């Protein structure tokens, strides 16, 4: 453990830190890299399409791939629940959510973007931190009923200023619910820097106030993120309660496609962040172990590009929502007034 308390397995150049012994086998790491590359490729493609007016507003994961993928790898999607915010695309895919449905949601067609019934995953959340009490209730409910499963919920350092964050951590501590709070500290809440959010040394330090452990990890280090998360998952599975993980990373792109970081971001900071790119780090590590090469990199990128292309084509072919669907899933049964409004809309 380095002196500053931030857990790291790989240094920024991809070399194992002295004394570090990676727990993940190479095949598993390679699988992680595959998700990271898919995520990065999707962000570039979607940004290009958005700039051409062919895609809606979205928030890229760029720079946070190790943070999202490394943490998600520590869960078992068959039993564990994912409670997302909105900047965790590879985690949704790892849970089995089809990329085409993600694209449909971003394109304003949530009807076709419904989460399949067999996936243990809640919808994305843009009312920030509002998902956290849902995650706690879900974990607590599993615990009450003696059902298996751990809950992970994602949010950012900005969201952790919301009251919902504090109420949720407090309730999780009191109930001992099996949950992992995964805070991605990407240094920015749109234009608001990390230093404006909290005077605490680490966001994870707040866990002490709720009576459970907080861990800080280098969020650009896939191996470290996995290890720290796995430890928290195991704790929760053993019935030892919640953990707050602060994953220190960097938002290497805009907040979303409407944002212009040049108004508030020092280009030097971005340059420094790019030198700590999580994908390059894990590529270097695998290359060192003879598991990665230029050919492999090309091959993986080509597969990712094809997967994205296929999903985009499939999304274009999805049925467009029907007007009547405005009135679907409001209640099990519409009120008489809603039913009358539906008839009015449909000209019945």
């Amino acid at each position, binding site marked *: 453990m380095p002196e500053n308390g931030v857990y790291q397995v790989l240094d920024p150049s991809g070399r194992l830190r002295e004394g570090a012994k990676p727990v993940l086998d190479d095949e598993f790491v390679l699988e992680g890299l595959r998700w990271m590359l898919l995520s990065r490729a999707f962000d570039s493609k979607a940004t290009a399409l958005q700039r051409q007016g062919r895609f809606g507003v979205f928030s890229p994961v760029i720079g946070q791939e190790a943070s999202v993928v490394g943490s998600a790898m520590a869960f078992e999607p068959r039993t564990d629940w994912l409670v997302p915010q909105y900047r965790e695309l590879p985690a949704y895919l790892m849970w089995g959510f089809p990329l085409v449905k993600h694209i449909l949601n971003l394109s304003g067609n*949530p*009807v076709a*973007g*419904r*989460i399949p*019934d067999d996936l243990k995953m*809640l*919808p994305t959340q843009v*009312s920030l931190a*509002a998902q*956290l*009490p*849902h*995650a*706690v*209730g*879900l*974990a*607590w*409910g*599993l615990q*009450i*009923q003696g*059902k298996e499963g751990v809950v992970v919920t994602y949010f950012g350092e900005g969201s952790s200023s919301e*009251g*919902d964050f504090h*109420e*949720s951590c*407090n*309730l999780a501590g*009191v109930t001992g619910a099996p949950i992992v709070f995964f805070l991605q500290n990407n240094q920015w809440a749109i234009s608001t820097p990390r230093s404006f959010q909290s005077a605490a040394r680490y966001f994870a330090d707040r866990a002490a106030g709720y009576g459970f452990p907080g861990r800080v990890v280098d969020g650009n280090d896939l191996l470290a993120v996995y290890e720290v998360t796995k430890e928290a998952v195991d704790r929760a599975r053993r019935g030892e309660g919640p953990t707050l993980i602060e994953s220190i990373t960097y938002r290497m792109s805009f907040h979303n496609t409407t944002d212009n970081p040049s108004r508030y971001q020092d280009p030097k900071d971005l340059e420094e962040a790019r030198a700590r790119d999580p994908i390059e780090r894990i590529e270097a590590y695998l290359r060192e172990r003879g598991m990665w090469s230029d050919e492999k990199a090309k091959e993986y990128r080509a597969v990712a590009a094809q997967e994205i292309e296929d999903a985009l084509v499939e999304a274009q072919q999805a049925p467009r929502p029907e007007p009547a669907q405005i009135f*679907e*899933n*409001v*209640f*099990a049964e519409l*009120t*008489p*007034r*809603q039913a009358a409004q539906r008839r009015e809309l449909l000209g019945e």
Partner: protein
Amino acid sequence: MAQLTIIEAIRAAILHEMEEDERVMILGLDVGRLGGVFRTTDGLIEKFGRKRVFDTPLAEASIIGSSIGLAISGLIPVAEIQFLGFTHQAFHQLGQQLGRYRYRSRGRFPLQVTVRAPMGGGTKTPEFHPDAIEAQFVQSPAIKVVMPSNPYDAKGMLIEAIRDPDPVLFIEPERLYRKGRAEVPDEAYTVPFGKARVAREGEHITLIGWSAAVEVCEHAAAKLAEEGISAEVLDLRSLVPLDIESMVASVVKTGRCVVVHEAPLSAGFGAEVVATLQEEAFYSLDAPIARVASYDTPYPPATMENLWLPSSARVVNAARKTVNA
């Protein structure tokens, strides 16, 4: 058949549903060892234990927010918020989150959640406790808002709420909690939402109210009867769904109407009632519809609340004016 207060009727409903279905649990401030600040959950922790009767930390947003997750996990939470005024601190979890979850998940996660809270003034509670903010929730179109005014409805509507596959905000008339008893069947029964109740039949004018305002209307109707004015009292029972048919039928019959509510006048639910009646029953009206509500000021200190709340005297005045118009 027993004579029960509203408190006892509510307790009977929760007890029955918890015995009937082990997925039903209650959570909220002081609901366990104390039995609730009004004792609506008295004796339940002894019977069902702490897993199903949970004293939560003092944090309304997470009481509602965690109920969402509890429901997704397979339980049927009945959350208590000590006073409706305290839902100010849970507002985003109620309307936006609880209310929209079926919709935003495109039907994947319907939420069978009941949120109970007492509402209204007249008992000299401290600031913020008595706020009648029911109309705010009607603007969140996917949560049911129901408000019984008597023991029979309290039990039947609460059982209906707990069994409803969708979220229900169950608002209780605090001032009437222990005021009088009424016959309540021992067995379980439901009172369907969206059916108003004719609390008193009349010919000359319709008084429309909900929650504790129904009692105000009934007092006013008794006084008006002494003057030879026969007033019908309609208890809406639920604002969502709204029983437009019964409102219209009564006003078509009487031709005159006064709407009474405890919330301040402007943009109160009375405005919705009046607008609906002028759309649906305009040609049956013999006079403009009047509203009697609290004034458009913050809730006053307890010593002045009776000047501020709609009184039966103000309802009688409004009814007289309407009848003589």
